[in-house]
């Protein structure tokens, strides 16, 4: 099956003036400016399959937003190419706009002075959505996001949570197959965050939308993402599943088991090390680069030993990503 999002060798360079320190430096910069190239994104390649949710992660300034802006048609790449739902976004901006929805958590795409519902109606006209289809979709979004409690309020009077929920609905009202979300839950309280995550999960699993998400919220990644692309200094440094990332940067799980027989011998298991034993209490941990995931290890321990109790300890994704960011910085 063709990918919904194809990115090949995508790069974007900005040219900026070097700011020299001090007053003299500022005058020198004015008279004789020194221009430098800033490589915001360099030679990034990845695909996203239809119906897949991919998290594009990286520290601040890594190039995530620039990548999304190129894929949504806001920016033109310096080199490389991209296709979104079969369209080159920066060559056919308006055609691409019909295939995508986008939410930038810090900005709204709604009309500031109009009630939310009227913004929705304008978008219906712009995207030429049939009235019945629009009404049905609005009802579905209302059920999931509780929009009707505030959709007659002007956008300028909405809370952040209400505004982003409205933006999410606005981005999907024309039923786009591909959705870009740039930090959609930034600044939200936990209840609204969960509501938004549930909505996104529904859009992927039930509606089959392809989602490219950037976030700094690892709980969000853990709950939603099947695959992660990690970028730093504009370069792609990792493309894999969460399990692969855990294995590479945060294999700090431990399986604690109580054996039924305190004297039984513990046979070695591939990729699993016996870290500690006190009578019937045993602690297993990962062994080597090919260590299994915590869930595979749990299954293996239960299959090979008779246990009366078992517990898991696992480094959370936040720790894993911190380790990954530190690692890519060192590289």
């Amino acid at each position, binding site marked *: 099956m063709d990918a919904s999002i194809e990115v090949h060798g995508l790069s974007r360079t900005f040219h900026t003036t070097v700011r020299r320190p001090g007053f003299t430096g500022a005058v020198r910069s004015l008279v004789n400016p020194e221009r430098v190239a800033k490589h915001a994104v360099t030679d990034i390649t990845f695909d996203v399959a239809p119906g897949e949710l991919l998290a594009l992660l990286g520290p601040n300034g890594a190039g995530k937003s620039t990548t999304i802006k190129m894929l949504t048609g806001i920016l*033109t790449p310096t080199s490389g190419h991209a296709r979104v739902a079969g369209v080159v976004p920066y060559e056919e901006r308006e055609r691409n*706009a019909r295939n*995508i929805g986008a939410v*930038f958590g810090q*900005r*709204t795409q709604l*009309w500031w002075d*109009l009630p939310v519902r009227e913004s929705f109606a*304008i978008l219906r*006209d712009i995207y030429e959505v049939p009235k019945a289809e629009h009404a049905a979709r609005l009802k579905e979004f209302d059920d999931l996001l509780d929009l009707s409690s505030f959709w007659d309020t002007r956008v300028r009077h909405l809370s952040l949570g209400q505004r982003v929920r409205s933006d999410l609905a606005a981005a999907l009202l024309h039923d786009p197959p591909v959705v870009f979300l740039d930090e959609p839950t930034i600044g939200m309280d936990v209840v609204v965050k969960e509501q938004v995550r549930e909505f996104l999960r529904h859009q992927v699993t039930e509606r089959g939308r392809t989602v490219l998400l950037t976030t700094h919220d690892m709980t969000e990644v853990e709950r939603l993402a099947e695959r992660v692309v990690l970028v730093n200094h504009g370069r792609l440094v990792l493309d894999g599943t969460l399990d692969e990332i855990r294995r590479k940067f945060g294999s700090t799980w431990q399986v604690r088991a109580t054996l039924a027989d305190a004297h039984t011998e513990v046979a070695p298991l591939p990729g699993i090390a016996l870290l500690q034993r006190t009578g019937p209490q045993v602690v297993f941990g990962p062994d080597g680069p090919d260590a299994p995931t915590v869930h595979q290890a749990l299954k293996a321990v239960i299959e090979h030993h008779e246990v009366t109790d078992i517990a898991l300890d696992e480094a959370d994704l936040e720790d894993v990503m911190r380790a990954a960011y530190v690692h890519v910085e060192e590289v």
Partner: protein
Amino acid sequence: MQSLRIMWRITLLNFRAQLEYRTEFLLMVAIGAIWQVSVIVFATVLLARFTGMGGWDSSEVLLIPATRMLAHALFVLFLGRVHGAGRQIQEGRIDTYLLRPMPVHRQLQLAFFPTNAIGDLTVAVGLMIGALSRSELDWTPGRIGYLIAAVIGGLFLEAALFTALASASLRFPAADYWSYWLEELLGTFGSYPLNVLPRAVGGFLTYGLPLAFVAYFPVAVLTGHGHDTGAPYWLAAASPLLGVLAYLGARWLWRWSLRHYSGING
């Protein structure tokens, strides 16, 4: 047709939204009118104290601010959001416009309803009625047609200047400040027969900043002063057409600048 329907619908909704804040709405209408106070004072002084200016009869001179004001008011109403576009650019709204299947320039114009245009238009229509009622010209269909063309050409010429600055704002945010200077300049010098100014200033306001083409040249042609402007007669007479051509050029510049847009905030 669908595009016109959407534009009309958004305009109506925006207008209704403005109406809901009654005091704000009235204040905006008032500021639109008060902003033109210098033109009103000029017209009053001209009629009360002088019989003419630079070889022009005062009733002929009055046609200059009337034409300029009407062109300006229509510019504010139909294309005026391009003035101050830098703010929308700085707020990142251009990014949002680029996400929709609609031309960015059109979305820029539909961002809000220009309530102040109501004040501008009221003053401009009043001034034009006053100027026409005092005019001793024979208003043949040809003259009326040329006056309408002059107003439309003036609208487009003003739009061209502000669109060019908005295009520059896409890359250099500070260019937006120039639009305030430009508005000030158009308001200050747009009401006079430019032959009363020193030759260098008149030359600058003709060939540097084409202010003369907004109202001075077309009114000079209408009133029979077309050969005394210092510019070739055909050039002065072609002012309405030049306004339209300048606007087409400015829109081309806008599209080029948008293709090279590098965004804000990374």
